[in-house]
């Protein structure tokens, strides 16, 4: 196959004597050391989902996400956060106080084990030992190991030391300002979605690097959530195209695009292709008020946004959203009902595709969590291991895999290092 002879499969040769398994996943054999905290949690999750051995390294006090809701049955505690359980499914977990100088030797030993190190040395209150500012790097990372930094702003530039959360990152992205009531405050998208989008970017860049020759693995990725937010402006309303500043609208359009209140609920229509207007007018039975052919032009509908919105809102007020959904989809008009999160969770579609998977562990019990973000033939994602207890793999990693003695581990525990 063209271009395939000079690249190497994204896997590390296994240690001598270790059994080579025929079964496996895309990243089987790839070892990832994850010190990136909340900001890289989704990156590590995706890499683990497709087969990498991801070892999450937490401070002995536990990752901050362990203390974020929701908690199973409302019981707060380091093992009962369902949020932590979701973002750390398929990972192993160890502890290490990586703010202390004594951690350096252990970090060197862990780095020698790893192919990839994920880290987030800025933007969190914690300070990662061995971080070098210029150029950004980690002094304890071995040769031929890929270092992937994920930070709110990147590791250069005037905001590099600023603190952020998913909430403030979204505020700065240019996205929040255009969402919400025109009079009231702009509204933050719930969740930590820009952190997770940065995570999927990182998972892509890491995989791409691992495809290359081994001598190019030794490099540094400096991924910025703020730049991921900017990249998402490549779609519409870029200031660079025409100097437009998008304002807060209470509907999304132009008509017939947008959300319409029907007698039995809300209906959302997406109408971006030229033929969608005609489809839409046909579905409404070609009412006279919409018969003017000038409405077929999208730009005209942008100009007549308010007038058309009033006309169409009136027409929908007596109709059934559910009936329109069925007829609209049959005719090829993209449309959907406005559901609550719980309505989505009860919808037959994700269930029919096996989207939810079980997580079973001490502290959070048996719960269903969102599963593979994509499915494939043959399957590339496997769900075996539920999220680790704090320090669950300490003995496995430090003693059995890195070859330290049980006595050493005992001493590190006594010193509060592990």
């Amino acid at each position, binding site marked *: 196959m*063209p271009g395939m002879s000079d690249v190497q499969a*994204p896997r590390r040769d296994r240690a001598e004597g270790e059994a080579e398994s025929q079964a496996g996943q895309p990243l089987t054999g790839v070892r990832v050391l994850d010190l990136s905290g909340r900001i890289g949690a989704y990156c590590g999750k995706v890499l683990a989902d497709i087969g990498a051995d991801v070892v999450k390294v937490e401070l002995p006090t536990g990752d901050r996400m362990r203390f974020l809701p929701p908690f199973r049955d409302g019981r707060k505690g380091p093992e009962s956060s369902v949020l932590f359980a979701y973002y750390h499914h398929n990972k192993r977990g160890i502890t290490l106080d990586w703010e202390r100088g004594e951690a350096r030797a252990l970090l060197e030993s862990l780095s020698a084990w790893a192919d990839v190190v994920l880290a987030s040395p800025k933007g969190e209150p914690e300070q990662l030992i061995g971080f070098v500012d210029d150029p950004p790097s980690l002094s304890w990372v071995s040769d031929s190991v890929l270092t992937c930094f994920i930070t709110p702003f990147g590791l250069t*530039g005037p905001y590099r030391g600023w603190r952020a959360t998913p909430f403030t990152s979204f505020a700065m992205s240019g996205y929040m300002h255009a969402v919400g009531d025109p009079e009231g405050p*702009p509204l*933050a998208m719930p969740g930590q979605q820009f952190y997770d989008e940065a995570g999927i970017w990182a998972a892509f860049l890491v995989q791409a690097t691992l495809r290359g020759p081994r001598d190019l693995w030794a490099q540094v990725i400096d991924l*910025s959530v703020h730049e991921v937010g900017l990249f998402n*402006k490549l779609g*519409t309303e870029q200031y660079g*195209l025409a100097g437009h500043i998008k304002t807060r609208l209470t509907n999304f359009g132009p008509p017939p695009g947008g959300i319409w209140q029907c007698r039995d609920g809300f209906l959302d229509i997406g109408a971006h292709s030229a033929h969608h207007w005609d489809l839409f007018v046909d579905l409404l039975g070609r009412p006279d008020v919409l018969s003017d052919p000038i409405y077929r032009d999208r730009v005209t509908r942008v100009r007549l946004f308010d007038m058309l919105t009033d006309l169409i809102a009136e027409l929908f007020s007596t109709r059934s959203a559910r009936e329109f959904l069925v007829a609209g989809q049959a005719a090829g008009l993209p449309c959907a009902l406005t559901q609550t999160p719980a309505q989505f969770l009860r919808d037959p*579609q994700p269930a029919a595709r096996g989207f939810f998977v079980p997580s079973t562990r001490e502290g959070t019990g048996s719960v269903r969590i969102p599963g593979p973000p994509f499915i494939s033939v043959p399957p590339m994602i496997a769900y075996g291991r539920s999220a680790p207890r704090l320090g669950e793999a300490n003995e496995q990693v430090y003693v059995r895999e890195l070859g330290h003695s049980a006595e050493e581990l005992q001493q590190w525990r006594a010193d509060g290092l592990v």
Partner: protein
Amino acid sequence: MVLSRSSPTAPLSGIRVLSFGSFVAGNICTLMLAELGADVVKIESHDRPEALRSYDAPDQPPVFEPSGIRTTALFAGMTRSLRSACIDMTNGSGRRTFRRLAERADVVVENLGPGTMESWGCSFADLRADNPKLVMLSISGYGRSGPLAEFRAYASNINNFLGLTSAWAPDGIHFDFVAGTHGACAVAAALAEVDRGAPGVFVDMAQTETGAAILAPLYLDYLANGREWSAGPNEVPGSQFSGVIRCLGADAWVAIELEDARDWAVMCSFLERPDLHLGDAGPTPEMRESLREAIEEWAGAVSPFQATHKLQKLGVAVGPVQNSEDLWRDAQLRSREAFVEVCHPDLGCIEYPNAPNRMSRTPGGVRSRGPRLGEHTADVLREWLACSESDVEDLRTSAAVWLPGETGDSSPC
């Protein structure tokens, strides 16, 4: 002016991609592959050009390529680094030409309507019969199986279906980017799987599922405890305080989140409000409201950037609510050259967001401006299929392909 910046060591160089990817999800996915080195050929139709080619803003005059086909800055931005080949899939000769290209491809990407690839005889099974290591990524709204497999969706529909709209606000484009980025990630995984010996990989990517994977924080309380999502506007569950506060100026706002008791104490000291200090039990709704009023009183006299600078110095998570103009002037983005100017003979020179590929040794980058319709048809036929000039002419005559002809100005800038 940055063109052909792609380094020979770009990690995906040598990978060949054929794309029926359109709109945001399909184009962004393939742009990501191209800007790390893949040769991505976008298959376009002369009779039904992609809608984004005529997706004008009201104050922008229509722009035409020399062939008379429309284009827009929006389209050119999302298709930069891609090549365009114009193949007519409605005739047998065009479909045969596509299948010959697919024999030489590593990856096929599509986000067409349900059943379209099958109707062309170009399903994954059809194409893999001639290319046993093929990776195919099929992006759709709801997935290619299940009761909604035949449903069509744009991104705003996904927001509504998943519950994001009801938990937040109407909006339109977010989950297209989420699917595009997951798509590139899935292609990279599938290429690795093929390297491991898999007999081709078909990826069935539902935008609803990529979206739901990162909407988990909205779902987990219901899944674990049966409790519906109930956070109020701008409320961050688990934080001591979060708010979007009005500042001095028109439509000027700052976002502040106090994650823990230390942050709360810092804020109270800064505002000189010792009376608001927290007890062990954490803040009550009344205490949050009192703090909000105190912050509002202070913030009303400063700009969002002043507020940010003052509070960042104290280590508080705070940021100005930037509009699209603020973003374009953002000192951090400018200092990191996060924008890239791309010049186009029909559209002029435009600054676009660059991809966030900050890799120290294999950064990739923008390979070329957005293509004119069918601009690379002949090149691709020659390079991929070793067609001669007369072969290309035969395909043109049989209407398998469309060539834009001599355009006068075909230089990239």
